[in-house]
Each structure stands twice: as C-alpha cells, then as structure tokens.
C-alpha cells in the first residue's frame, strides 16, 4: 500500500520507500533507552560490556553512546565514550540477527602493561543507539535495506551496593 507524500515547498510527490534515502539525506534512526539502576537506587556499577542485538537485511553503521547519571558521554556533554559498530549485509538478503559486542571500559596501561581498567561508573544508566548514514542495499538489489533493533543487554560490575536508607529499606 503506497504512502504518497506531497511536498509543501515544491510540486513534488514522494512515494515512501521508493529510494534509499530522504531525497539525498540519509534516514538516521536514534533511540534512547529509559533509565535503569542495576545496583539499586543508590548503588553504583561500572559498565563492562554491551551486547546490542540487531536484525538486518543490509549493511549499516551506527554507534552506541552511554549516558550515566544524565551525563551523555558523547565527547560534547562529557568525555567521549561512544562505540561504533557495523552490521554486515547477509549474503542472501534475508533477515539475519547479528550481535554486536561493545566494550564499555578501556585498559589502564602503565609501561605498556594493563594494570587495570577504566569504566563508566554511576547509578543510572541509559544507552543511545544511532544509525549513521543510509542503510545499504540488500545484495539481491531488489528491496530496500531493513534494520530492526531487538535490544541491548549490558554487563555491569557492582562497585557499591544500595544504601538502605536512601532506598527506603
């Protein structure tokens, strides 16, 4: 069922889904999860790994941005802790689920030796998932590429437990 859209500035009529982008502008998706507090209301955790699950029929690039205690770690509002990912195109253009493992910590090196790890520490965690650029074309060249987000699973290391008083226990 075609969805036709009429332009208010030109005499153009568009057919949704008839091309790979918005008349030259990539369709970039962005979702941001709501807050979770893995260690409780006043506990603290350090993010370790994020497992992003996507289903795609074509290649697409994107990135995951952690938001901890309302600080967006995007290099603008806080340090840059964004992690890029690329989903590869399935060989047969059928939907293929792919898991992207994204590190949320980085090594602390002293004289080239990893002596520890630095990670994002806090109570409330959110994650922003974005696609960058257009979704590629499926290998069969027939249909537009498809990208579905399934979910994100995150491993945290608990570094402080819930304060019973703050938690009202």
């Amino acid at each position, binding site marked *: 069922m075609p969805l036709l859209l009429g332009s*208010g*500035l030109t005499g153009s*009529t568009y*057919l949704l889904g008839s091309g790979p982008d918005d008349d030259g502008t990539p*369709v970039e998706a962005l979702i941001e999860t709501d807050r979770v*507090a893995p260690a409780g209301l006043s506990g603290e955790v350090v993010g370790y790994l994020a497992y992003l699950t996507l*289903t795609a029929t074509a290649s697409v690039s994107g990135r995951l941005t952690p938001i901890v205690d309302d600080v967006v770690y995007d290099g603008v509002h806080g340090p840059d802790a964004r992690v890029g990912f690329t989903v590869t195109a399935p060989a047969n253009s059928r939907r293929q689920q792919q898991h992207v493992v994204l590190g949320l910590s980085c090594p602390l090196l002293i004289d080239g030796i990893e002596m520890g790890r630095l990670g994002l520490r806090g109570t409330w965690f959110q994650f922003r998932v974005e696609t960058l650029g257009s979704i590629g074309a499926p290998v069969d060249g027939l249909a537009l590429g498809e990208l579905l987000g*399934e979910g994100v699973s995150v491993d945290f290391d608990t570094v402080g437990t819930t304060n019973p008083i703050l938690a009202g226990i």
Partner: protein
Amino acid sequence: MRTTVALPFNAGLDRATGSYAVDPSALTDARNVSYREGRWFVRPPLGTPITTLSDVVVAELFVFRAKALMVKVVYNPTSGAVTVYTCNLQGENDTLIGAWDTLASGALSPPRFVGAEAEGLFFLAHDEPDVTKRMTTQTFDGTNLAALQADLDGGGAEDIKFRGVCTHLSYLWGWGFGSDSDPDRPEVLRSSNAGDPAVFTNVNYQLIGVVGEPILSMGLTAGGAVVQKEIETHLHLGTNRLDFDAMLIDDKFGAMTARLAVSVGDTRYFWSAHGPRATTGAASVDLALPLELQAKLPAGLPTGGDVAHGWAEYDQDVRQVLFAFPDFGANRTLMYVLNLRPSPKAPRWSYHVYPKALLCGRVTTVTTETALVSPGTASAVSFAGSQGASSASAVVGWTNNATVGDETVEIWVKPSAGSWTQSRTLPVSGTSQSTTITTGVTGSGSYDVAVRMKRRGNIAAGYESSDPTAWPAGAKASGSVVVIATPVLAAPVWSYPTPNELFTLSWSTPTAGCTVEVQRQITGDPFQPFTSSSYATIQTTAADATGTTDSVSTPQQKYYHGYRVRFAKDGVSGPWSNEVLCWRGPAIQPTGMSVLWNGVGGTSYTVAWVNAGAGELGTDVQELNPSTGGYEEIALSPSPGTSALVSPPLYAHCSVYANVTVHVMIFHLVTISGQTFWGAPVTAQGTGLC
C-alpha cells in the same frame, strides 16, 4: 559482582513516567523508528520525487476509489492559482484537470482542502475559516470539475462554499456554510439528498453545538459519525432525515482541524488542543501522556510547524497513525507516529523526521476491486515507418481515451502479408503518446499496427482477442517502411589518362533497384577541413551500379577531392556512405623529412628530405601560419634538391631559452604524360632550443 541487565526494545516512547516506575524497556527518544512486536525498525526512506509539477506546492492528495485514481490539488504561491490534477494510485502520470480558483488575498496559505467521495463523484472543499475568502466547493466526476450549487435561500441556485465535506450513510455532509445570503454559519451541518450527494435543499441542515463556534471536522466511529469543534465533540445520531440528531459527548476536547483527524476502523484519532486523543463515539481518551508535550522535545529533535497545517493519515501497512506537522521555514516535517501494532489498545509512540516540508500524505490502496475498472482505449493511431534508414523501425502514435493513468499499452504490428506480433509494452502517459518500435518491423514493406490497453490484466471490451484484426478500427493504422543500405565507399584511385584527370570510385552492392547519388567537394587548401554542407551532387548512376568515374580537366592544382555516395529508390534516399579523400595528383611523395632549427639564438631552420626518385622537377616548401591554420609558400626549388634553408621563417620566431616549433609541408613537382602535377603533400615538424 557482575550484573546483566537486558533492555528489550519493547515498550515504546515514554517520557512521562518517572524513573522508579517506568518500564525499563521504554525509550525516552525514538526517532525515525517504528515498532513491531518487541523490536523497532528504521522507517522507510522518502526516496526521490516520483513526479514534480513546477511552480506549485502539492497541497492535498485524495484517493478517488470509484475511478481508481488520485486527486491532487496544487497551489501556486506566486499567482495564488489552485489547480486540480489526477494521477494514478502510485502517484504517477500527473494529468491536468483544470483550474479551481485563485486563492483570495489574506486567506490561509498554503490553503487546506477536505475531500469526500460519494456515488462516483468526488467533492472538494476549501477549509478556509473566513467564508468570504473561501473557494466554491467542487464536484469532480473523474473528468471535469464543476461548482457545487444549490438554492439554499430561495434566491436561485448559487455556489456552495462548504468548509469541509464528509460521506456518512447515503448522504454527503457539508459544514460551515449557510446560504448565499447568509454564508457565515460555521455551526451549520448540511446533508445532501439521500443517494444524490450533489443535491442540497434548504431545509436539510442541523445546528451543531454553540452557534458561531465552527465545526472543524467530521468522521466515522463505531458509535456513528462524530462532529468536532475545537473543544467539543458531538455524536451524530440517526439513520435518515426523520431521526437525525446530535449529542454532545465531549465538552472538553475536539479536533484542531479537519486534516488532523483520521478514522481507523471504529476509532477516530484526532489532534486536540491538548494533543492526540481517540474516540469510538464516546468521550475521548488521552493518547498524549507518553509524549509529555508540555516538556521540551528530546535534545536535537527538530520542532514541527504550525498546527494549522498539520495533517493525519493512517498507514495500514504498518498500523500507524501519523500526525504530521510540516515546518515550511525550516523545510522539514516532524511526525508523531502512533504505532497500533500489535494492539490498538497498547499504542506506542515514536517520532519521524523528514528533511522536507510535507504538506500532505495519503495511503493509496490498490485492490482487486480498483483493478477491475476498465482500462481506457487508444484512438487516432498512426504509423510512420522509417524511410531510407539502413534498419527498419516505425514511430507509432496514438491518443489515450478515458485512461486512469496506470494502464499499460500494447503495440502490435504485422507485415501486410504476415501475422501479428506484440512489439512493445509501455506505461500509459498523458493524453497522447508515441513510441518507436523495431520488434516485428523487419524490413521494407507495408505494415499494420494496432494499440490496446490493459489494467492489471483487464482488457477493454472489444479488445479481448489476441488477433488485433478483431479490434475496433480506430485502434489500428497502416504504413510502409523503406530500408536502404548504407554504402561503403572505397578509396578512390587517381589517374591521368590524358587529356583529363580521372577519379575512379567504387562502393558496396546497393539495395536492389537503387540508383546511386555521388557527391563531391573540393578544398583549396590541402588541410582545410571538409564540411558536409560543401558537397554537391555530380552524378546519379543507373540502378544497381557499384562504381563510377569522375573526370576533371584543370591540372596542376593542389587540391583534395572528397566523395560520398548514397543509394536511393522511389524518391527515398538512404544514409550517406563514409567519406573518402583523394589527392588530385600522383602519390609521389618525399620521405625522411626533417626540420632542424639552426642553433640557440638562430634565425633560420633547415628542411631536409629524401626524394622519391620519380623524376621530380622541384619541391615546394610551405610553413604553417598558426593564426589561420593554413600553409604558405616559403621556398620553391626549381630543381629536385634534398634540403632547403629557410631564413628568415615566415612565422616561426626565436625566443631565447625557449623551444621553437616549426610545421612544414612540402610537395614534389613531377611530370606525367607531359603534364606537371604536384604530388601528395607531406608534413613534418621540428623543435629546437632557441
């Protein structure tokens, strides 16, 4: 201790619920995504325009199901002209229907339109609040626009200017217009005669809600039609004129505009002054809470445009209600997207952002029923066969009659004594078309051509047979094709059999029965380019000739002759052959030619060559004039020397510590049968440091 938290993308946008209570799988921002069960997906792209009409904006699109086409209302912001087009259900093949009116100064711009279909007619209303600036309601039968008129005040038939129209039961409903003598009645809802939507009588109207407060929208729900004002919703009751009534069902919420409401099954979704709501014919329910509209939009999400130009549509493919707000200044559109999948009882929101100000949107449904509309037919078919080309083809033209724009056109062709072949299939376009066919047009002869149309397999009555002989005569035509081969002209041979020079020409075998037209041109400068316009016909041979001679009697000229030929028959000429050049003289040429600049700071150069040893009488040396491209004589040696000192040069000049380049051409003068001729020229160039 390691903890794993899984966050499925399941709950949709929720900007309202607090952190302690919110579903962990909810989202605080969801941009350019829609939802399926437990996942989101990236929305489809806009693509590039499938059609563009110049100097206008596309103000509204409607689906006219009875005619299986779309009605496109466009507006010219410069002139104010409002024009109606149709296109097919895929949005293609814009066809001009006609001018509606010119938008009045001060009217809402771009204008808004509301449409409704009833009894094979489509009704177009101008949703302009000020009745003095409102355009007359139009009826459209698929071919012509006409003003909707009625005598509503006893003063005779006058134009009706409804603000909006809606089909309900077997009536067409129009609101916002009293009569020609009392037009500004925004609370009036009029109904047509049953089954006769273009006929309105004075007594058939209702007053909805507070007098003077305008009706803005009307649409269907499970409980019946709802009539909405800005802060009221009324349920329209009854099934015929005897029991029509209206009941206030919501005194707090109504629809902001007619275009910001859409019916989906038993529910009417609409944008109220407090955001999106839904009604099934009872008090409306709030859908706006997860959007938290009173808060700022998520960071980076562009704002939408004025609610006055917002619109709503339901995309049943993905079960989404779209509330779109185009921003003309920023040329973008923000859509609030209500995802009804998997259940309308648990809708989920997301945002769509488009980098274009999209003023309207319409889902078209191409169904089996719409496909059953008969295709149009072709008339005034013409066949213009190629005449004289080396390969056969024909241009077929025809007029499209009663097409809806999504037909395919079949071109059938047959030699007069042969059988029919389907030569081409192409989409219908515009009111008349032409196309070139080659399939089935195999060579010279007479041909018949026939044209028919199909709509998704449907064929118009009278065209069902696979033998076009049985089709109506108006869809057929005849014509001829004449194929004439392209000659291949060999290099001419010069000779001097005294007293005249002779050029002997030969070419490939002509198409049977063809004469051969021979053309020649002469250049005064050996290196002057030949041009097609300088050719002149020197003779036409008898049929089937494969060669001829060209005799000339003015010897000792430094000329080239250029020749070309073509075959012709029955007044039809074929393509020209290749062009060939021939020097007017013997092919006696010097060899080993060199040009040597005489040293740094020198003012002369030396041309050297090796004689051909064919009894040369002398040598003519010429130098290129760079400004004209021609050669000019600088030395004429009366004896057959082997070099010449050129001092000073005609055009080559020395610039110290730079390279100087000299172009030189020389001829030998020879005697043949007692007559002197210049042999074919040779050129060379030399470069020296000066």
